């Protein structure tokens, strides 16, 4: 686009002057500006903003872009498209995360153990083999109608 090269993101800032220039470029205070650590991952001098989703931003403030809860010129998070309101929500929960995780794992573990035990040691009412009428369904099973079927009795008197 028509923006000059010094307004675009660049390499990791090494000197304090480069840091000040980068902070000014991204419309941040020099104290607020914190680049990603220089591990060679490709972040350059992009600022490291807090990992908070857009759900946490004030819904009642007059944003320039209300659906994105974003003001013109404000630096966007590197994972901005992950933190939009259709996706990840990092807003505080009424119950702490570790409590929720503990309760869920206890429930899941208990159910899995019980289902596993039920598979290893099944328990049901006693059953006998099924008894079919008409001489064990002689004609339905393709028996010859001209011949006498073998007599099958399921009872004892």
């Amino acid at each position: 686009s028509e923006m000059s090269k010094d307004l675009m993101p660049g390499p990791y800032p090494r000197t304090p002057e480069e840091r000040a220039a980068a902070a000014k470029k991204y419309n941040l205070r020099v104290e607020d500006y914190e680049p990603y650590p220089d591990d060679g991952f490709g972040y350059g001098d992009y600022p490291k903003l807090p990992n908070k989703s857009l759900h946490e931003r004030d819904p009642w403030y007059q944003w320039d872009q209300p659906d994105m809860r974003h003001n013109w010129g404000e630096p966007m998070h590197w994972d901005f498209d992950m933190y939009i309101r259709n996706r990840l929500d990092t807003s505080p929960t009424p119950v702490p995360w570790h409590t929720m995780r503990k309760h869920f794992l206890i429930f899941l573990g208990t159910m899995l153990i019980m289902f596993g035990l039920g598979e290893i040691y099944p328990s049901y009412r006693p059953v006998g083999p099924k008894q079919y009428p008409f001489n064990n369904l002689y004609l339905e099973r393709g028996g010859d109608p001209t011949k006498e079927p073998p007599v099958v009795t399921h009872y004892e008197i």
Partner: protein
Amino acid sequence: MAGDPPPTAAQAYRPNRFVSLPAELDPETYDSSPEKRRAEAERLAIRARLKRQYQLQLNNPNPPAIIEDPALIRWAYARTQNVYPTFRPSPKTSFLGAVFAIGPILFWAFVFKADRDRKEKLIQEGKYKRPFSVF
């Protein structure tokens, strides 16, 4: 351990990367010091300057066709075109590249070869039942 004071509500909450601390438990929201207030005033000044620039463009009688947002352009540029120039082979990046790029290829090559060898052995021994093919 017995002499520790009971954990504060903020410590008991234990925010992590999935949930943030509620503002009611965060001591930063209360008792602003003069330094914090000055910092907030400076941030407000920056925000007001940007708002003014945007509103001037928005309410211009001859508005431009598109009011482009430099923050958006910088974000897109940083994520697409600024990655290769700023990339540097470091121990961490080399390790991750080996694990995620070369690892799966070697793994699946090994799995397929092992599967084929097992099937070939069964065929040689005559134990393999050929699947029915329509073609």
